[in-house]
């Protein structure tokens, strides 16, 4: 571990992923990955295609069971719990390819998430307020299937927020958004994190944005954590450049 403590928010760890390993029919997708997420921290998770980011997300969210290793959420071992239990405990996720309930309106989508979700009173607001927050107020009564990519991504966020989470797993929220929208996403996440005591793990390929939005970055390659630290440090790391670009470009 590069051992950089980004800010004091990290001191109390909300989510602790420890030595997680996952094999798929002989292939090693994750090889002993550990990471900690602090309270109100926004952690970037990056790595080239096939590095194991999605696998890690799926393991935290309960969709996959790790071959070995543990996931601890606020001191409680949640390894191998089914996704619905994980969500009710307070970990929400978005999908890289948006998976809304297509035939329902935007508001219904959010409403369902709110009414099941964590089972507590929503700390973010009513479904309508959440739609407003993510900028879908005037599209609230449209069917989710009719939204454009950016709208669907916003809906993903709204749905995740409606479950009243403590930890938010964001998967490529900015891909498909315009640069201005992307800037909005960065500001929005920062605001959410501060106002609602939210910790975020953020996977994003639009690095320009990600690097502005996160406090700390973890880099995966071939299922192994190859770097961790502040964005500007990580970018100049030689291993990272090798993994990303196949070598130093210029």
């Amino acid at each position: 571990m590069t051992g950089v403590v980004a800010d004091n928010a990290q001191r109390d760890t909300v989510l602790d992923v420890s030595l997680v390993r996952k094999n798929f029919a002989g292939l090693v997708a994750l090889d002993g990955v550990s990471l900690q997420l602090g309270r109100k921290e926004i952690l970037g998770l990056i790595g080239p295609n096939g590095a194991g980011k999605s696998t890690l997300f799926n393991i935290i969210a309960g969709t996959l069971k790790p071959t070995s290793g543990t996931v601890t959420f606020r001191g409680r071992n949640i390894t191998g719990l089914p996704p619905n239990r994980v969500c009710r405990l307070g970990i929400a996720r978005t999908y890289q390819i948006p998976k809304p309930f297509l035939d329902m309106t935007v508001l219904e989508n959010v409403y369902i998430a709110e009414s099941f979700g964590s089972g507590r009173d929503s700390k973010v607001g009513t479904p309508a307020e959440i739609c407003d927050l993510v900028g879908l107020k005037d599209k609230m009564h449209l069917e989710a299937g009719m939204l454009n990519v950016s709208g669907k991504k916003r809906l993903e966020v709204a749905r995740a927020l409606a479950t009243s989470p403590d930890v938010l797993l964001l998967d490529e929220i900015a891909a498909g958004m315009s640069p201005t929208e992307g800037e909005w996403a960065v500001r929005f996440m920062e605001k959410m994190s501060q106002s609602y005591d939210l910790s975020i793990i953020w996977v994003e390929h639009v690095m320009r944005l990600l690097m502005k939005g996160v406090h700390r970055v973890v880099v995966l390659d071939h299922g192994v954590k190859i770097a961790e630290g502040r964005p500007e440090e990580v970018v100049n790391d030689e291993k990272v450049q090798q993994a990303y670009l196949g070598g130093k470009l210029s």
Partner: protein
Amino acid sequence: MLKGYLLVHKKNFVRDVVPWVGALVVLAFAPYFVSASLRSFLLFLLMWIALSQSFNIFTGLTGYVNFGFVAFYGLGGYGMTMTLLSLNIPIYAAMVIGGVISSLFAFAISWPTLRLRGAYFAIAMLSLAQALFVIFDNWNFVNSATGYTIPVKYYDPVLQYYYMLAVAAVTVLCLYVIMNSRLGLALKAIKQNEETAVSIGINATFYKAVAFGISAFFAGLAGGAATWTITIIDPPSAFDTTITLTAISMSMLGGLGTIAGPIIGAVILYSIEHYFGLTLPYLHLIVFGIIIIVVVLLIPQGIMGEIISRMKKSRRQEVGEEG
């Protein structure tokens, strides 16, 4: 919860409720002004409405196609008959027990079967119903192949009509309540995207099993009421795959997942079957087959599904792309 959802939907109670109550009132007074033959036609039409609707409660709301649906009908019929004959309790109580037995069976098999998807689930359920048929046919506890007859002292066609009307009405009402409840919301989410549903905290396994059990309960009630009317029950009639297939065809023709759909489907198909059955013996199978083929090829969503999607389309055109 219900309140919040209704806010989202802005239900029009006058438009939504009045026709149903009207239909119920007409049907309730029907025995006083229609002939016995029409009453009997209506009775079995109500049975098919109840059956296609209880089929719809599970398959329409979850998207899992239950090809062994008749098992619930048969178990309800047997449950009703056997409790009636052995315990000598009022017939409505026996019917409820039949429904409960069928429901318990559904819960028992939900764990292994609901893990299966698509064609596997369909084939597994089909085989399960066939296995039940063979087992009942050989099982002395249920009087094997001979089955049971309901004693003539219970014969009362008007009362039978009202019971069937009650079963159909309660089944339709139950579907309405489910669709507007937390359970319905969860099922709707599961049907549209099970993965997302689970990711927002919905326990899909549990809700599916509940829907399965409710569907079985009402199919069992209908089976009990039908057995009372038909007066005999034996394995070939109780576990007749044709019943499953007819219920599927009816709800599919009308539109799975809608309230009015299975009712419309039942009215159309049962009328056709009754009409051709009376006049052209072999032709009704041919007509039936052609209708199914035409529906699949031309209106795969069923009549109500087609109407709804047309309404949506025209609304979309009003709103314009992306509103």
